[in-house]
Structures are given as structure tokens and as C-alpha cells.
């Protein structure tokens, strides 16, 4: 009995469950579009207030439409199913709307302020009513780079070493340290500012200066970098490490020659996430560094402006031009955050790309 064993190519119609009748397709299409169209028409004609009519006119219509279609296609149980879809999409789209609103306003208002001069000049000659042709965020950008840079230089080794402690040693305090790091991550940012202020400035040890701001940012950055770094180290398969140890390597060589290279992209991600965490922090810096108009490259002496404190300062002034400057600073800050965001994504996809190889 000869039976043909060979595989057959998959036919076009190999998913019978996706075949929905034309009637059902039409109903679903109508249910998604008709309420919206009717609502928009009513909106234009009657000039309703948008938000309240959205809730009172559109939402009920759409709910009823989806429930009816669900009833028709799936029977009684389709009603709740339809409602679930409506609720999820309606509420979820709010998030989308908010995001677009924030991003769009920053881009639109910030772009109007942006100019080459705005980026590199400082505000020494700027009064609250000076036009936008003079002055800029140059000093604030440098300030951010310096203050955040110092924090990073101090925090990253500390956090990485802590992550090593948590993953490589059998120390008895590991649970305690993890709990404390968790506690630290819940620290309100204004409280870390107060801490540095009370410890260093109030006690007279120093006055407002950039480096105190850097210190205030450390408790905010440390838990993030440490947590992500710990995860990255954990993800390195135990077999790799055990292989090295089995060959007689010391703990340090196993770590430096096997674990560390394997976890490299994860550690880079940890650092980038840490920087992104603190680059927008305002409150701690307001309590420790004071604002300055001029460019100050000295972290040890004198007030220094950073992008977030610059933004805060100009919003507080309240004039139209000051608000515009604030938007400009917001856009620059957002661009910096964007770069970090993209870099972090690239770093973590490098990790998965390497795994695939």
C-alpha cells in the first residue's frame, strides 16, 4: 500500500477560524465607525464641549454599538466581550493622547525658542523681559553635564561593586543590602536634597556648589544602576562561570574574563538608565546648587545652573519670555533624555543580538 509521505505546501485557506462571514465583517466595521462619525458630526454642528460630550454622547453610543454587534455575532456572552474591547481601547487611547500632547507641546513651543544662540549662550545679560535673541541654555547644558557627570563617576563604580557583592559573594548582609537599596529607591528626591543640605551646607562645611548637587543625586541613581547591573550579572549563565572556575581560575579572573564581558551590554544599559533617572531631577539641585546666570565650570565653588533648575527658575518668573525660555530648556532636556533612551535600547538589543548568534 503506497502512501505518499511527503510534506505538502500550506494552502492559502489553512486558517478556517479566521474566515468571518461578510455579514459579521460589515457589522464590526459599522460598529467601529458609525458612532464616531455621528459624534463628530454632532460635535461640529452643535459646538459641544469636547470632553463632556465625549463621555456623555460618544461613549454611550459606542458602548451600545459594540454590545449589539457582540450580541449578534457571539450571542449573549458577546455583550460583555464587546464592552471589554470598548473600555480597553477608550481608556488606553487616553494614554496615547496625553503622551502626544506633552511631546507635541514641548516640540512646538520649544522649537520656537530654539536657535543656535540659545544653545550656546548663557544668561548673563538676560533680564526677565529680554527678548529671546539674547541668552540661552549654554551654561545650563554644561552644568547638567558636569553635575550629572560627577554623580555618575561616583555612583557607577559604587553601584557596580555593590552588584558584584550581591552576585559574587556569599556575604550575610546581602538581604539587608537589597532591602536598603529598595528603601533608597523610595526616597523622595527632595529629601536627598535636604540631607545633603543639612549635612554639608547647614553645618557650614561648604556653601552652595555643584558638587553638593552631585552628591544629592547619588542616592537617586544608586538603586537603579545597582538593580539593573545585578540583573545583568545574574543573566550570565552559571555554566560559563563554573567552566572558568573548573579550569582553576580565581574568582577575580573568572569575573573579569568571563562574567564581565558577557554582561557588558547589560551593564552599559544599567549606567544609561541611571543617568536618565537623574538627568531631569530638579528638587535636590534646587536645595544644594543655586542658580547662576553665568557659565560656571567650577563644581567646587559658586552656583551652577542645570537644565532642570534653569527651567524651574524661568517658570517661577512667570513672564511670557521666561516661559518661552523654559520651553526651550524643556526641549533640550527632552532631546538629551531621548538620546539616552535610544542608547539604552541599542545597548539592550546588542545583548539579545549577541545571544542569537
Amino acid at each position, binding site marked *: 500500500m503506497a502512501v505518499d509521505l511527503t510534506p505538502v505546501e500550506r494552502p492559502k485557506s489553512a486558517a478556517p477560524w479566521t474566515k468571518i462571514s461578510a455579514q459579521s465583517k460589515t457589522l464590526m466595521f459599522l460598529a467601529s465607525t458609525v458612532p464616531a462619525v455621528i459624534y463628530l458630526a454632532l460635535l461640529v454642528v452643535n459646538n459641544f464641549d469636547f470632553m463632556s460630550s465625549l463621555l456623555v454622547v460618544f461613549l454611550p453610543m459606542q458602548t451600545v454599538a459594540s454590545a449589539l454587534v457582540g450580541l449578534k455575532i457571539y450571542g449573549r456572552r458577546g455583550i460583555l466581550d464587546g464592552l*471589554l474591547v470598548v473600555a480597553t481601547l477608550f481608556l488606553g487611547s487616553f494614554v496615547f493622547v496625553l503622551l502626544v500632547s506633552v511631546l507635541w507641546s514641548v516640540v512646538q513651543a520649544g522649537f520656537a525658542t530654539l536657535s543656535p544662540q540659545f544653545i550656546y549662550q548663557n544668561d548673563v545679560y538676560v533680564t526677565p523681559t529680554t527678548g529671546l535673541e539674547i541668552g540661552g541654555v549654554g551654561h545650563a547644558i554644561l552644568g547638567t553635564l558636569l553635575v550629572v557627570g560627577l554623580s555618575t563617576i561616583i555612583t557607577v563604580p559604587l553601584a557596580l561593586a555593590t552588584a558584584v557583592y550581591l552576585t559574587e559573594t556569599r556575604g550575610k548582609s546581602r538581604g539587608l543590602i537589597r532591602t536598603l537599596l529598595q528603601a533608597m529607591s523610595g526616597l523622595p528626591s527632595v529629601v536627598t536634597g535636604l540631607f545633603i543640605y543639612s549635612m554639608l551646607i547647614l553645618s557650614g562645611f561648604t556653601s552652595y556648589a555643584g558638587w553638593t548637587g552631585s552628591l544629592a543625586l547619588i542616592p537617586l541613581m544608586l538603586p537603579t544602576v545597582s538593580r539593573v547591573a545585578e540583573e545583568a550579572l545574574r543573566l550570565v549563565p552559571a555554566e560559563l562561570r563554573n567552566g572558568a572556575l573548573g579550569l582553576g581560575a580565581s574568582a577575580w579572573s573568572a569575573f573579569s574574563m568571563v562574567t564581565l564581558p558577557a554582561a557588558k551590554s547589560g551593564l552599559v544599559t544599567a549606567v544609561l538608565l541611571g543617568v536618565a533617572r537623574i538627568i*531631569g531631577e530638579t528638587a535636590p539641585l534646587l536645595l544644594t546648587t543655586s542658580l547662576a546666570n553665568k557659565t560656571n565650570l567650577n563644581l567646587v565653588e559658586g552656583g551652577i545652573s542645570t537644565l532642570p533648575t534653569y527651567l524651574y527658575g524661568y517658570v517661577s518668573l512667570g513672564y511670557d519670555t521666561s516661559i518661552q525660555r523654559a520651553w526651550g530648556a524643556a526641549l533640550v532636556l527632552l532631546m538629551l533624555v531621548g538620546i539616552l533612551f535610544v542608547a539604552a535600547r541599542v545597548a539592550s538589543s546588542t545583548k539579545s543580538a549577541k545571544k542569537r548568534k
Partner: protein
Amino acid sequence: MSELTEVVPPKRKLKVKASSTPDRIFYGIATAAAYSTIILVIAIMFFLSLRAWPTFEKFGFVNFIFGSGWDNTLESPSFAIGPMLYGSFLIAALGVILAVPMAISIAYFIEFMAPKPLAKTTALLVDLLAAIPSVVIGLWGLSIFSPVGAHWGEMLHDAFGFLPMFENDADNFLRTPFIAGFIVAVMIVPIIASITREIFSQIDQDLIKASLALGGNRESTFRKVILPTAAGGIVGGVLLALGRALGETVAIFFVLNLVFDEVNWFRIVLPEGGAIASLILSKFAEATADEVSALLAAGVVLFAFTLLINSIASFIVVKAQPWRK
């Protein structure tokens, strides 16, 4: 033939010991760094409490925490954070109430509803929202959202003003707890959404298969299997977001009218409110010596509360999922 003894030799102490100098240095540095964490936390608590103590001593814990009025006159200062403390919680609660439905919906959409590419894009957008610094959201809140929020507040007042919640006798709907709460919601939606997403994705697929095999459809599976299983973790995520909302400083400062003398209990569209973190910010610049101590005391109270909430959050997440292996 030797006897087989029943005696078990005593347990050896197995310790990971540094075998060489490089290893000793390696472990030494790691341990030192880790212990510096302990030192840091202790230092924070110590220094804050030290400077805050005079205030607690002078006014008493209860009076300071629950009383009202902030008066920094030099002869007879009087500081109390009651309205601020309550206000922080009110705004955080508003933020959570507004954020949770949005966050869970979008998490459900990403994990269970959307086709893969759309889900990935949506997840990216949520992460993008999380990355926006809160000071930028504060600026948006002040310039763009406040008029809209005031308008909504007015409408709520017109429609439901008979409810005490929407009372307003000031004829001005700007700088209200409602607006502050909404802005806080924008900040915490990504936090809750991320945690919820992670919990959804960790639900054992076998449970969902079991539900479908029993004749469950999308909605009944969500309501009776997915949500109950995820509930504990979601509550934990919400508490974490609550902690974050309590600590929010600048954005609330931009959009809220701080009133120190009396508590605004529930009139959320009235332009009177409080928030401890914003209190600190607003009074800091020109604070008298006594006042500085009081501000530090306020910071200690805030820290204590966020610590408490974060601990409860971790506890709940663990407790609510006893089946987690």
C-alpha cells in the same frame, strides 16, 4: 569486615574564601561598596533626624504632624504640616484613581489584545512617557493642561456642585488638587502600566489555556482568571506608584495653590491644597533657622511615610502570590 557506623560526622563550615590576593581585593572592594550603602542610609536618617529633632521637641510630634498653620515669625514661630500631609495623600490618591484604569487597560491591550507589532510600538510609547522628566510634565501641566483642567473643574462644579466634593466658592478653578492629581496621574501611569504588564506576562499560560478549554471567552477569562491572579501584584505596583506620587515636588508646586492654615479635605476643584514636598520647596529659599529645622522635620515625616508604603508594597506583592515558585 568493618562495621558500618551510624555516626554522621559533624557538618563542615563551607565558606567561600578568597584564595589569593587579587581575590581578596576583589571581594574587599565589593564588600566595602555594599556596606557603604548601609552607611549612606544610616547617614541620611541620622542627619535629617538630628536637625529635625528641635522642631519635634518644640512642638511635639502630634501637633507638628496633624496641626495646621505655618508661621515663621521670629518671636513665636509655629509650624505644622497637617494640611500639607493630608494634601499629599489626597493628590496621590487622585492620581492613582485616574491612572489605574488607564494603566491596566493599556497593559491588557499590550499583553493580550494587540497583534505583536502594535503591542511593541505601544509598549515603546509607554516607556517613552516614563522617560519624560517630571519637571517637563510640570511645565506642560502649568501651561497647557491647567486651563483645560480648570475648565473640566468648572463643568464638574456646574453639573455636580451639590456634592461637597465639587464645591467651589472662589469662582476660580485653577491651581486645584484636581489639576495636581491629574498631572501626577500622567506621571504614574507608566509605572503602573509597566508593573501590570510584567505581571500579566508572567501569568502561567496553562491557566489561560485551562480557562479557554472550559469554554471561557476573552472577557470571562480576563475577569475570572487573569485579574484575580494578577491582583496582588497590581496592588503592589499601585502602592509603589503611590510612593512616587507622594514624593513629587516640582510639578505639584507649579500648579497647586498651597494653603497652610487649614486642611482642604475633599473639595478637589477648589484652589486650595497641600503637598509636603512642595511645602519644602516653597519655603526653603527664605527660611529662618527655626523654619529650616521644621522643613527638615517635614522631610523626615515624608520619608517615613514613603518608606512605610514601599515596604507594604513589597510585602503585599510577595504575600499575594503564594503560588509563585
